[in-house]
């Protein structure tokens, strides 16, 4: 797998495509268009690009009013400010009346890098997931980003799309990828353990599974691009068939994918679930690579979690 596309770049390009097809699509940003890549849309369709300045609450509230009048607003800023600063306008002005607003937030997670903890949003999945009516999505690569952004544009209702800053390896080939709303993707089959990952951790899960294979462990790998509503059937089946689960996300281990998976399995198919994620702590400045290693988000960490979950499964058998 070669590093080739940042999900934010794929988002910017897809927006331009969508803008050509649908005149109702408008894009709002909060003075970060060069970073979120909405600048591509702004150049192509200046009349339908609204820079709202550094004022995220009004950014969301304005999008609500545009949607109430028939527009399809895509709203972008960094994940921290979109979901943190503007949480309540999202909840009360967008989600409660189920308005057709797409929040595409970039620079999520530790891989923001040098900007440090203030900008590394590790809570956004949790705080968007808890809002009724909200769909929460997190693509693993550029191809999946394109599919998600297009699907979100065609869906009527609020959607949160989590995007990242760095380039990530290509997992999918555009021609072969058939996106299904709310359905996880089984990328590798295996019967010993299931690794359920989202975002940049999907590529790492595949890498971990390859290494595990060499040690005789057959890991199944599932990409959960839609964290809410989550693919309960696929997760239940994988847990039933493999008996052990590991989750991996670039997010606090509280409230994100790991929690969502544990909630499903606690009710439907109790098996050991080991969560890989940031362990309820803030990040710091550093390169993305350094941070991923220091905070335990690597293929190696996933392999260790797999060992733990299989050991727990074996213990249950006894």
């Amino acid at each position, binding site marked *: 797998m070669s590093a080739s596309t940042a999900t934010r770049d794929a988002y910017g390009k897809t927006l331009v495509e969508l803008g050509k097809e649908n005149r109702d699509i*408008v894009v709002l940003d909060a003075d970060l268009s060069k970073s979120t890549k909405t600048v591509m849309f702004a150049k192509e369709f200046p*009349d*339908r690009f*609204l820079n*709202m*300045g550094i*004022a995220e*609450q*009004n950014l*969301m*509230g*304005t*999008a*609500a*009013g*545009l*949607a*109430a*009048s*028939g*527009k399809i*607003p895509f709203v972008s800023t960094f994940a921290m400010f979109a979901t943190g600063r503007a949480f*309540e*306008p999202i909840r*009360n*002005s967008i989600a*409660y*009346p*189920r308005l057709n607003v797409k929040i595409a937030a970039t620079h999520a997670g530790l891989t923001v890098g040098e900007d440090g903890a203030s900008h590394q949003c590790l809570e956004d999945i949790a705080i968007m997931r808890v809002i009724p009516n909200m769909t929460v999505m997190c693509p693993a690569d550029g191809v999946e980003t394109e599919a998600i952004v297009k699907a979100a544009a065609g869906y009527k209702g609020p959607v949160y799309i989590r995007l990242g800053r760095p380039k990530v390896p290509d997992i999918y080939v555009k021609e072969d990828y058939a996106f299904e709303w709310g359905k996880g993707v089984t990328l590798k089959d295996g019967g010993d353990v299931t690794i359920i990952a989202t975002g940049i951790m999907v590529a790492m899960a595949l890498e971990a599974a390859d290494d595990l294979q060499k040690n005789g462990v057959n890991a199944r790998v599932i990409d959960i691009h839609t964290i809410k509503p989550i693919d309960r059937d696929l997760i239940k089946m994988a847990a039933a068939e493999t008996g052990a689960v590991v989750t991996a996300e670039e997010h606090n281990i509280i409230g994100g994918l790991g929690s969502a998976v544990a909630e499903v399995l606690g009710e439907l198919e109790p098996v050991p679930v080991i969560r890989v994620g940031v362990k309820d702590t803030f990040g710091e400045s550093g390169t993305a690579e350094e941070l991923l290693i220091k905070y335990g988000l690597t293929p190696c960490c996933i392999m260790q979690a797999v060992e733990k979950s299989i050991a727990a499964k074996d213990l249950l058998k006894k």
Partner: protein
Amino acid sequence: MENSIAGLEQNAVKIRRAIIEMTHAAKSGHPGGSLSSVEILTALYFNIMRIDPARPDWEDRDRFVLSKGHASPVLYATLALKGYFPEEELSGFRRIDRMLQGHPDMKGTPGVEMSTGSLGQGLSAACGMALAAKLDKKDFRVFALIGDGEAQEGMIWEASMAAVHYRLDNLTVFLDHNGLQIDGPNRQVMSVEPLTDKWKAFGWEVLEVDGHSPEEIISAAKRAEGVKDRPTMIIAKTIKGKGVSFMENEADWHGKAPGDEDRDIALKELEVICCEC
């Protein structure tokens, strides 16, 4: 008749009576700030706005956003009187399994343009609607009502900056300036003055009216229609609890429901005014 000044005054009394009945029956709700904005809503819905209650989703209709959503009784009473839904619905205000929520819910109530209640958010939504009109080259106008206490929310000033930046001359905002909020007078809780200077400094056209004079409200709204390239703020001097002697200028009646005796006295006072007109 209904859009004449006499007609508006009669409607205002009917709406005030409904506000008292609703909050009494619900044993909760916000009578004070509902009563202070009765003339503003009456003038908007029965004279100023281009609307059709039979077609609440008509694309070219004017929009009204009640940003101070706790004044829902005045909005519901006005919508019912205008014919958006049967007046019997008013008896279900704040009750389980009924339509009229404590704060406005656009998904459940015909004529409600935006879900509001968390202060500061409605003005941004109104800006979004005005922007949509500009994008689609439509001539509908967008009106909003904010409170003076609500002007303490930072989001109000974010929206006020954006409305000027995007030259939203199709946006007209009323400020219900009754001077009181839950904990007491604005000047004690958090000073908001000078309101006129603040919005002028932001670049708005600012007008001041007697918020209980339908003539002044209507003439200000007409003036606002002629203002080009910037939004208009109409600061309406009002009396909290207007029309009910013991509620007037009393912060305590912000969010307190009238009891049986309070209701009887209030309705009696409102009858007298009704007979005079």
